[in-house]
């Protein structure tokens, strides 16, 4: 694989990613924002491919575009009154300032620093090698502790989500008074 495709791909995909991210910010409709967010995720997956990270790119599509966006879709659907609103809060100005600051800081550092980079043949060496086996070996070898912790984290996340959302079922089986009490108490906890 020569670098022509990589160069064109990088520019096109990064344009898609950045522009769609901006549109997520600008869109007034939350569903539109979600559509652009998915586009940004897909562009990001493409950028991963230009980095010869095939496994991660596919995982990105699977997890972000396939699962997290669907979760968001469900969340939007379950909150109908708010579903069409992507309005800004009181903190727009600080937000924009912080975003610009971070972006310019990172950009400055990225451009200004002399990175110890691999180029040319050294870079081409790692072009589209199969990364799956290597990543798997790393996950189950060097980072096995982190891997286990991550799986525990996922389990906790799963249980937490179920516990959070199932609260209403219990309230529904109680008497109306009790349910009202529970609602008030839980609401207070928020």
């Amino acid at each position, binding site marked *: 694989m020569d670098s022509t495709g990589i160069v064109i791909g990088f520019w096109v995909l990064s344009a898609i990613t950045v522009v769609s991210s901006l549109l997520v910010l600008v869109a007034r409709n939350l569903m539109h924002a979600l559509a652009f967010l998915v586009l940004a995720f897909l562009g990001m997956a493409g950028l991963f491919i230009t980095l010869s990270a095939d496994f991660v790119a596919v995982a990105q599509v699977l997890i972000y575009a396939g699962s997290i966006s669907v979760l968001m879709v469900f969340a939007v*659907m*379950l909150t109908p009154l708010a579903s069409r609103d992507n309005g800004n809060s009181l903190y727009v100005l600080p937000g924009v300032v912080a975003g610009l600051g971070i972006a310019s800081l990172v950009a400055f550092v990225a451009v200004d620093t002399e990175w110890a980079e691999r180029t040319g043949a050294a870079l081409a060496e790692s072009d589209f090698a199969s990364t799956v086996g290597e990543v798997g070996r790393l996950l189950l070898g060097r980072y096995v502790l982190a891997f286990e912790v991550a799986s525990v984290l996922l389990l906790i996340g799963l249980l937490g989500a179920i516990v959070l959302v199932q609260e209403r079922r219990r309230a529904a089986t109680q008497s109306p008074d009790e349910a009202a009490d529970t609602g008030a108490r839980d609401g207070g906890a928020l």
Partner: protein
Amino acid sequence: MASHAFEVDQTGTGSAEPFVLNIGPQHPSTHGVFRLRVVMDGEIIRDLDMIVGYLHRSMEKLAEERTYTQNIPFTDRADYLAAMTGNLGLALAVERMTGVESPDRAEYLRVIFSELQRIASHAMANGTLVSDAGAWQTPLLYMFREREKILDLFEMTCGARLTTNYMRIGGVAFEPPAEFWPALQELLDELPERTDEYAQLLVDNEIFLARTRNVGIISAEDAINASLTGPALRGSGVPWDLRKAEPYCGYENFDFDIPVGKVGDVYDRFMVRMEEVKQSVHIIRQAVEQIPPGPHKNDIPLALRPEPGEIYSRIESPRGEIGFYLVSDGTPAPYRFHLRSPALINLSLLRELGEGASLPDAVVTLGSIDIVLGEIDR
């Protein structure tokens, strides 16, 4: 039972706001211009309201301007899937009112044709029910095969397939042609094995059982109290059939049984209809064997003038008790003409059945009650 293993409790899943869904008047599973206004919470129906009348033709008012004979075609158009029994109901009511007799041969022909009509109507009802359960029309078209042959027999005899206008006051309109009898025999010979074929296709099918068993249960008490009749009542286990309770046209001479369901669910109503088809074949066989020669019609005056008075006469149509309440004031036209519509009255429990059911269950339940909008709206 067969189906509860994979079912999920859906109460409490729909946390979105309830919304109103209009099912119909143009909808694949409302069997006509029937409209359900449904308040849904996710997939669960919270409230349900039926809106009918899109096919209302003011039949009862129009009937007050026509002689009794002229009113017979209205009954074709009321229950257009069972025109023969509609005709017969009115003809019998007028005969009972005026004392007109019909010849013996006509009585047997009436039995043969109304039982043929029952088979055709049940085939349609069960076929559309399975279609509502999602079986992409294959069973429907299988059952249409038999219905088609029966309609061919009707066409042979009276020239019409749907709106037959065949039963007349004092007899039947026409004598069946010579080629009718062999064709009928052929049909009777193949019908039992066809019904077994459907049973093989549907009754042994796990998906069909999972969709229909324990769905839309009507208890016997409710069924009686809500004036349900026909297969809807028998599906709930009540052995009530006007052909036995008030025999007309010589039904007391035939040997047949009443099929009754056990649970009162959609499946039972389906199976009761399947079994009634077999019983109807049995009745027709007996009638064909016993039919006497003779005239098929007695002459009656052009305009019958019954004595002032009233009558409520009913027979067992495929959908239940079709009754005619006629009030005469001595003129050639009825003073009051009321058709007791079994399809409409069978819907009395629809709201209670629908509340808390999921949308697919409600659709199947509606299909199992077997409505005909021509009769509901009149």
